[in-house]
């Protein structure tokens, strides 16, 4: 076992308490939820926070419910809970698709929705899924509660709109009629980060794509988002040609980098292939045919 550097530890009893602790310890503090990203980084000494603020006691932030036309996920919801949720599966099957390929059962039992989003790893699957679903992030701080569109939540790799003295408390996914969604990922091994992954949500009105969301993970898409591909498909019938055109645009605008998981051209190819697969399954699901 690797040994992390020395750190202080505080356990938050409530959201206001967590905010007070954050205010007191400043930017040297890190919030720990499931800890499956932060603790390995600390053991490798890639992260050396002066203080850990443990929010695992904030059980009030663990819920999945439908409210005000939105699917609302508390930030402390564990991956395993989202995977098991029939409510989430009914409205956004891509969440189940994505959760099934996030890490492994042990990590999913402990890792949280909010932790994944705030870690903002460029390969994070839920970030792409939420980008596709056009989610909203609810952030609390000393100044009150604010809501940020997911497209503005991610500022870059490992950077979010959450200030050092703020806490992400909830993710909201607007529920709209005619929806279908799917998530496609290619990984080297179960539990690994994606080589490339694509989430797609379509909202059909009759035979026309009234709106569409396409989220990309691990391929350098700004805000995990394939804006050009969405624009090309919006307002069109989701036929093979339209999907192929959208897939090509997603591939063209992705900015993958070469690493152990593969070279640039392969990743770009995967973006196109997986965008096509995700869109086809999303459309099939929107039409009531499981794809």
């Amino acid at each position, binding site marked *: *076992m*690797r*040994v992390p*550097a*020395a750190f202080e530890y505080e356990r938050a009893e409530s959201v206001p308490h967590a905010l007070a602790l954050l205010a007191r310890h400043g930017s040297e503090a890190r919030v720990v939820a499931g800890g499956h990203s932060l603790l390995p980084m600390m053991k*490798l000494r890639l992260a050396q926070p002066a203080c850990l603020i443990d929010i695992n006691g904030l059980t009030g932030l663990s819920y999945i419910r439908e409210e005000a036309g939105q699917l609302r996920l508390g930030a402390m919801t564990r991956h395993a809970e989202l995977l098991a949720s029939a409510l989430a599966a009914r409205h956004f099957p891509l969440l189940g698709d994505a959760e099934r390929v996030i890490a*492994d059962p042990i990590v999913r039992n402990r890792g949280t929705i909010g932790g994944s989003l705030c870690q903002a790893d460029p390969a994070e699957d839920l970030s792409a899924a939420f980008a596709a679903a056009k989610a909203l992030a609810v952030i609390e701080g000393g100044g009150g509660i604010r809501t940020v569109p997911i497209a503005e939540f991610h500022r870059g790799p490992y950077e979010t709109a959450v200030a050092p003295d703020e806490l992400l408390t909830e993710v909201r996914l607007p529920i709209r009629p005619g929806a279908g969604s799917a998530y496609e990922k*290619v990984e*080297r*091994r*179960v*539990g*690994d*980060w994606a*080589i490339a992954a694509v989430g797609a949500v379509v909202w059909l009105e009759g035979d026309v794509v009234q709106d569409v969301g396409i989220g990309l993970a691990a391929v350098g898409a700004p805000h995990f988002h394939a804006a050009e591909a969405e624009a090309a498909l919006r307002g069109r019938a989701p036929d093979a040609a339209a999907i192929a055109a959208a897939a090509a645009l997603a591939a063209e605008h992705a900015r993958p980098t070469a690493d*152990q*998981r*593969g*070279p640039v051209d*392969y990743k770009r*190819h*995967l973006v196109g*292939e*997986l965008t096509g697969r995700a869109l086809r399954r999303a459309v099939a699901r929107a039409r009531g045919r499981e794809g």
Partner: protein
Amino acid sequence: MAVSQMIGARIQRREDPRLITGHGRFIEDRTLPGMVHLAVVRSPHPHARIVSIDTAAAGAAPGVLAVLTAKEFHTVLSGTMPVAPAFAPDKKYVPPRFPIAEQEVCFQGEPVAVVVASERALAADAVDLVHVEYEPLPAIVDPEAAMHPGSVKAHTDGPDNIGWDTTFAGGDIEAAFAKAEVRVKERILQQRLAPTSMETRGVLAQYSPFDERLTIWLGSQNPHFIRFFVSMSMGMPESAVRVVAEDVGGGFGGKISPYPEDYLVPAAAKLLGRPVRWIETRTESIQTTTHGRGQVFEAEVAARRDGTLLGLRLTQVLDLGAYHGTFGAFQACAGLMAGGVYRWEAVEARSVGVLTNKVPTDPYRGAGRPEATHVCERMVDRLAQELGMDPAELRRRNFAREFPFTNNFGLVYDSGNYDGTLDRALELADYPALRERQAEARRAGRLVGIGISTWVEICGFGPAAPTAGATGGIALVESAQVRVLPTGSASVFVGTQAQGQGHDTTFAQIVADTLGMPLETIELRHGDTAEGTGFGCGTYGSRSLSVGGMAVQQAAVKVREKARQLAAHLLEADPDDLVFEQGRFAVQGSPATGKSIQEVALAAYGGSLPSGMEHGLEAVSYFDPSNWVWPFGAHVCLVEVDPETGAVRIEQYVGVDDCGTVINPMIVEGQVQGGVAQAIAQALYEEVVYDGESGQLLTGTLLDYLVPTMNEIPDMTLDRTVTPSPVNPLGVKGIGEAGTIAATPAVINAVCDALSPLGIHHVDMPASPDRLWRLMQEARP
């Protein structure tokens, strides 16, 4: 428990209740009063000159007792780390290796200093405070480039990078190739692998200055060898050093040879007068525990158009790393085994061991035999493709069928029935139906492939004469001591050292049958050099049962025969008139008159022994096999490759193996399953990667080094045939490495078969999605 036939019984492993409930005794479970913690300062450079080491800041850090460098260690350690002759006795260059670097570091992770502190975390903190000034030197990473005259040298003082260059000539290779009607040639890579045992390495040492005794607890496959080497380096009598390996959480070859820490921790314990413990981190494990494989093969086959094999010529370039692994040259046996299960007119194999600036390589599960099987089975498939012949048919046409079979290098295969395992595997897989399924899939544009691997291995090391030469003096025989206590239970001491092989169960089964005693009354002891036998050679190379298990059986027979003498005395009968059955000696013809083994045991410690008989009921036996043993089998794999993503899915896996007499079928199946899983890991997932320019390890964590999980490993259909070995009385062979030897070519042959419609002839390992996609891209018009 009623005594019946134990050999062949499907008995659950006796060691498992302890291990699977968290009650194993691993190194990190053991603490001693006053124990302190050692952490190692390692080179971040693959190659550099050490300019200076400043230990002042680390020495002044909280809790730090000492910071030690080569200078201090020279006061308690001497000599260099051992290198065995193995299969390359004529070495050209063996760079000397002291357990800790002095002037030059030659691989990333090489120890430079150690910190000893009161707490593990404080030792880790202080490591960062040791300031080592390095002058970086050019590093050589690629073994083939390292062979060129004028290459950057892995050691600045070395003449070049050639560790050995040996050619094994098996017949007239020129004549065989002159008859060729068809030739196929291929370059086949064996990537570096990290053994990745679940328990990393660890060493705890206690030195008593008053009686000058040293005890070392460590995770080892080979405790007697560790005592042999460390006692010599420390200038202590071998008898004053005790090495204990309790439960060992996996080895896979990575815990055979002595490591720097095996010397440094005991030396630090002696220098400081405190018990010292070091536990390897996972990163250290991937970085510094010896790697396996790391070879490049160039192979060429000559054959007739009818599929008759004529000649096989190959070169093995073996990446030694920065130093020779103690048993690194064992892997040169790949050349001797490259002919596989087939008859050849000639085989010629050149092996070149090459030094590079990477961690040393050493045996890894299979060690040379998976490489041999992979080359041979890939080449046979290439030839089948070239000839348009069914690969099963081509194999059958060339199988060795007369046993004992002498291969081109004079090695004598003890027994075999290669048709038997292949027929059974094809039957279980329903081979004709698989081919139909494949044809149908191909018509639909899908990439489905079938791979076959028919394999044989040499194992059971022994015999004494050749192995004593190979180790540099110690014969790989095994001994056992069987001691029956007065109340009729038995302690059995062996020199092998299980790390998951289930010896506590199988060896006890042998004793139970031989002495007619209930299994639960038989205790197996191993891993402690202070107990039992004078020397043991450890567990690796699928040798434990066929050498160590036979010593156990022989010792138990000796005990039984002494008991027979004593029983005869007690019964006033002739020993030859006694029958021994179910643990009882009875007089032939009057079954009511008899003595149980337990009654005899008590008498052996009593006052009524026959004149001339010594007290006690125990025996020691050494077993030196007359030959190696040669397990074999046939595996069949069905895969589908996604034409767009390059992902491989194993749809079906069948393995039929023959390891002679089976002591415990459940353990045999477990060994095969684990072995196949480890081979699938090599075929599709695992690879140690160093940056080709900087020499930096790029796969230093389990996020980067892809050990597969249960999700990647398919259900397997396993079966066996039984062809007993004539080499030992029980007819046993070995099974620990079989799956690892068999399965990589089965998987890769299947992948190649799947891609063959695209004109792809060969795929290197790991067959990762991006690698397959690249090949398909290049093949598509």
